[in-house]
């Protein structure tokens, strides 16, 4: 009995001490596309300046906004433009988006589809696949195989950019029953390991070995590849900004991170992970 009492007392003292000296960490939440850059920046800042930074990607872009609006995070990472809907959902917050780079959303397919001859799709064809009207790759010039569309969860920035392009507005996108994937890693994994698969994914995650990024066939018949050059000059329609968002202007540790991301070193990280820097520079492929 005495032993337990002493144990509890020690525990209680540790708790109290912890409470007294609690250092408030910088909490970051959001998109898995922006995550590699911010996570690496956080590691550098942790090592160099001793900042405590927690990065979390459980809800994707929309989860990041929700965390920021709820006060559960200081910085949100989003891989899409900030929408009016975000602001109306959290009227008390003053969201300030800061662009740290650009990226392209590509439709990626598994190896067998690419090898089977499908290298690009038009918007009408994509709509047909999404809505279940086109069911086999044969109808698109490929081999006889069922199309498996892994849909990004509707909360993900990648999905919102896709819906904007395909339907003009995410609200107008039809309600469909498709298998869903969450993080970029999961989408990559599922597409790579399933035959006849297609999904929405950041183009820099398509390595050309396991998954392949399709080009977009425009109305005039020309095909645009999801290359960063096409993003820069605006010819690729599924381009998107990569942003970090704060509530009000960034202060203190948030400012330190944002400044770092916009500095040459931070922008070098953006390029390193395959995205376009704010200035339009990209790493040599």
């Amino acid at each position, binding site marked *: 009995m005495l032993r337990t009492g002493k144990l509890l007392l020690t525990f209680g003292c540790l708790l109290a001490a912890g409470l007294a000296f609690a250092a408030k960490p910088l909490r970051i939440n959001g998109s898995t596309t922006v995550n590699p850059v911010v996570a690496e920046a956080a590691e550098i800042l942790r090592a160099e300046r001793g900042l405590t930074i927690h990065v979390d990607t*459980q*809800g*994707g872009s*929309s*989860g990041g906004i*929700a965390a920021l*609006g*709820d006060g559960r995070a200081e910085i949100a990472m989003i891989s899409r433009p900030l929408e009016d809907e975000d602001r109306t*959902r*959290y009227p008390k917050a003053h969201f300030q988006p800061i662009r740290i780079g650009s990226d392209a959303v590509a439709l990626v397919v598994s190896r067998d589809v690419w090898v089977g001859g499908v290298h690009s799709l038009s918007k009408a064809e994509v709509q047909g696949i999404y809505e279940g009207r086109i069911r086999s790759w044969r109808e698109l010039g490929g081999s006889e195989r*069922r199309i*498996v569309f892994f849909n990004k*969860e*509707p*909360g993900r920035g990648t999905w919102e950019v896709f819906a904007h392009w395909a339907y003009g507005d*995410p*609200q107008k996108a039809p*309600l469909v*029953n*498709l*298998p*869903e994937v*969450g993080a970029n890693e999961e989408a990559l994994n*599922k597409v790579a*390991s*399933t035959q006849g*698969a297609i999904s929405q994914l950041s183009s820099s995650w398509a390595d050309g070995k396991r998954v392949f990024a399709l080009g977009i066939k425009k109305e005039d018949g020309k095909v645009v590849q999801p290359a960063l050059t096409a993003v820069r000059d605006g010819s690729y329609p599924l381009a998107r900004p990569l942003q970090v968002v704060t509530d009000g202007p960034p202060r203190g540790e948030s400012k330190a991170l944002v400044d770092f991301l916009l500095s040459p070193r931070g922008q070098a990280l953006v390029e390193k992970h395959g995205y376009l820097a704010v200035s339009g520079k990209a790493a040599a492929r």
Partner: protein
Amino acid sequence: MIEAAPLPAIRRRRWELTRLLSMGFASLAALAFLGMLALFAVQSLPIWRHAGMDFLLGESWFFRAQRFGVLPMVYGTLAVSAVALLTAAPLGIGAALLTAEVLPRRGRLAIKTAIELLAGIPSVVYGLLGVLLLRNWMHRLLSPWEPLSGDTLLTGGVLLGVMVLPTIMTLADDALSGIPAAQRLAARALGLNRAETAFRISLRQALPGLASAVLLGLGRALGETIAVFLVIGRQDNQWPQRLLSLQPLTGAGQTLTTKLGGSETFLAYGDLLHWGAMMGLSLVLFGVVALVNLAGARLAMRRDGRA
């Protein structure tokens, strides 16, 4: 037991610190659990007001359009659990018959030990094996039915079956071993062989205990999240087109638990109606699991003769 014969002339002070302390701690524990239930009930009010019975009977779930119907997820939960029981119950009871009726004492102890240990394997480990191994096997196995991938309700069910197998086996063995050895010896002495002894003496009497074992295994299967989450495909609104069609089993699906364990819970966090729907899911899950376990526990008590 303290209650059997009252302890004679025990001095009880009018108030006892120990009693207060124990009651206090026990009340705290009870409060925590009841509080959880109350939390689910209260926070799910928005969805009951919004949809009422349509929530329970609705066939589609599209949160962006504020359509919330749990039927496909209930179907997923039941389908996955049914497959799990169909794989685990025969195997488990058969193996329990082996340990309780056939094997000598040492053999029984060895196998029981192994099974009890393996019952503790974490569900995330089962999930990992499901992702890395089972999924591909099932994809190949189901190829005549052209599944989209290895992530199907069937895969989830089989994985779940392997997970509850130790539970059913241990409980079934307990039930069968409860039959006094004297009865078995008498039966053998009268000339019955092992099979007949097992069927006519042990199985018949142990039936409540076996039923309880299966029910408790079912209870565990119903509540499992992580392992199923990784191999089920998490596709909403999978609902059989025709009555009694088995087609959905070869496709991806969603259960009550996988929905709750997914990222929609985070998305729903700030939205009153959406969160209400998730709480409604929690309530439904709670109710289903509670019912099944209540039945199983009652049968177990009858088996043990605990009064």
